[in-house]
């Protein structure tokens, strides 16, 4: 059964509404009859994106596929990643990749989960932000076993800890590596 974009947006809005969304930033949460479709305020031309934007984007939004390459963008709290993964697993999605992004100027790290559906064009992106000095969030490998390797790679490159992961040892770096190369303050 292939879900529709609106059904998914609604389920994510309900997920987001159950607990606080992002650390240190209260966000407006649209639930119930108000559709969770909103457009992010445009970033001014030439704006330096390393400064935190003044108006945070809505947590669940449908985006323009022809520009971004995905349909649904959900920002959730780190504690909710397993529930989000379960929603997508029940709807038949597959894990595309897990990306880490080091927002050093905002003192945060972002983990982005991309999902694709084997039977439809739908593309869902789930993102979450962590504190940079202690980046930790639960693993989704019980739901998607493929996340095992993606999380090991993200840990290799950024030092993000996935609690509950069965084997968080280096995957692409040497076994005794203790450096995290894709951090913005990494020097060889």
């Amino acid at each position, binding site marked *: 059964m292939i879900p529709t974009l609106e059904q998914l947006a609604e389920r994510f809005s309900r997920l987001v509404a159950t607990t606080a969304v992002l650390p240190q930033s209260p966000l407006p949460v649209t639930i119930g009859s108000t559709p969770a479709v909103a457009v992010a305020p445009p970033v001014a031309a030439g704006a*330096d994106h390393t400064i935190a934007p003044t108006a945070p984007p809505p947590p669940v939004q449908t985006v323009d596929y*022809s520009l971004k390459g995905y349909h649904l963008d959900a920002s959730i709290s780190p504690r909710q990643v397993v529930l989000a993964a379960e929603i997508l697993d029940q709807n038949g999605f597959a*894990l595309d*990749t897990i990306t880490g*992004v080091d927002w050093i100027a905002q003192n945060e790290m972002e983990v*982005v989960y991309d999902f694709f559906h*084997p039977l439809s064009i739908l593309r869902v992106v789930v993102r979450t932000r962590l504190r940079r000095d202690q980046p930790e969030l639960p693993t989704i490998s019980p739901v*998607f*076993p*493929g996340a095992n390797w993606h999380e090991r790679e993200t840990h290799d490159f950024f030092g993000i800890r996935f609690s509950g992961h069965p084997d968080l040892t280096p995957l692409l770096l040497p076994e005794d590596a203790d450096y995290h190369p894709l951090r913005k303050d990494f020097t060889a």
Partner: protein
Amino acid sequence: MIAPTDIPDRTNLQETFVLNLGPQHPAAHGVLRIKMTMDGEYVTRAEPIPGYIHRMHEKMGENRTWAQFLPNTGRVDYLSALHYNHAFVGVVERAARIEVPPRAEFIRVITSELNRISSHLVWWSAYLVDLGGFTPLLYAFDDREKILDLLEAVTGSRLTYCYFRFGGLCNDIDDVFITGTRAFVTQMRPRLKMYRDLVTDNIILRKRLEGIGPISAELCRKYGATGPVLRGAGIAYDVRKVEPYSVYSQFDFQIPVFPEGDAMARYRVRMAEMEQSLRIIEQALDKLPAGPVMGKVPRVLKLPAGDYCYAVEAARGRHMVRVVSDNKEIPYRVKLRTPSFSNLSLYQEASKGMILPDALALLGSLDLVIPDIDR
């Protein structure tokens, strides 16, 4: 004389030993190490350990301008380099709203499909060498040299192409290429039939591959495996049909799907894909429009801030590029989602309890390129 009671009964012993397959091994298809815990000839646990050819592509993405990163894309998966070119130019064109002329799109499709055929030929010949048949390598490399001649005249390289540019191509094709490609398609069809008669229908190959390495569609979904691995498990997922990009929606081609989920199904998918690629090339040559091959691109390319994705169907599966831009000439983050990474991640679960030659047959049927895993 040894009496039967003198021979110790080892059937209940659980002695295992660790056998390292690689990183240097003729069947490892590159520098992949698989730590196999063996019970005699049977694999109890096969743990792939990549990282021996990690070449820091994602870190280089943060140290190069958008255009300077293009040669890297050809080296991630060198056998289907044009698909990886396509994904990166696609994501930049999508984000910067750059228009690509139709002639460039058609030539991109023609060259990408030629690249797909040459990649599958290398897979086929290397796989058969693993299984013990050396001769098809000589035939396949001969066909491949014809493709490489065509592509070399147009792109300048034999292997690690860097032919696509933001907004089109760096070089137009000429009549020599068009007649050469038509001649290639004409002579390739009987060759594929010969391979089918001599190799695919060969009883030795069928006994080696049928029923070996079953991978179910649910296992593929859980691990994110795509490409012929998923299509050999019964799911018709091909990015060219499900998330159409470039001008693929204008062509009439089929997605070969086989439901059995074993190594033979994956093998048949790839052989059938070569025939479908020939169909696409013919249609694209017939419909090739005239015009420029390069669109308008700003002199200094900066993408608006935000993140963007683009997915293509590479020879091995779904390849997706995710870039995060902060409105500078240099990307903030480039993430390459490569098919071999996800395809290999299911190896540990799929190879439990297999006998060693079957485990190698399974490994070959996944069609891995190791720098694709390690990036």
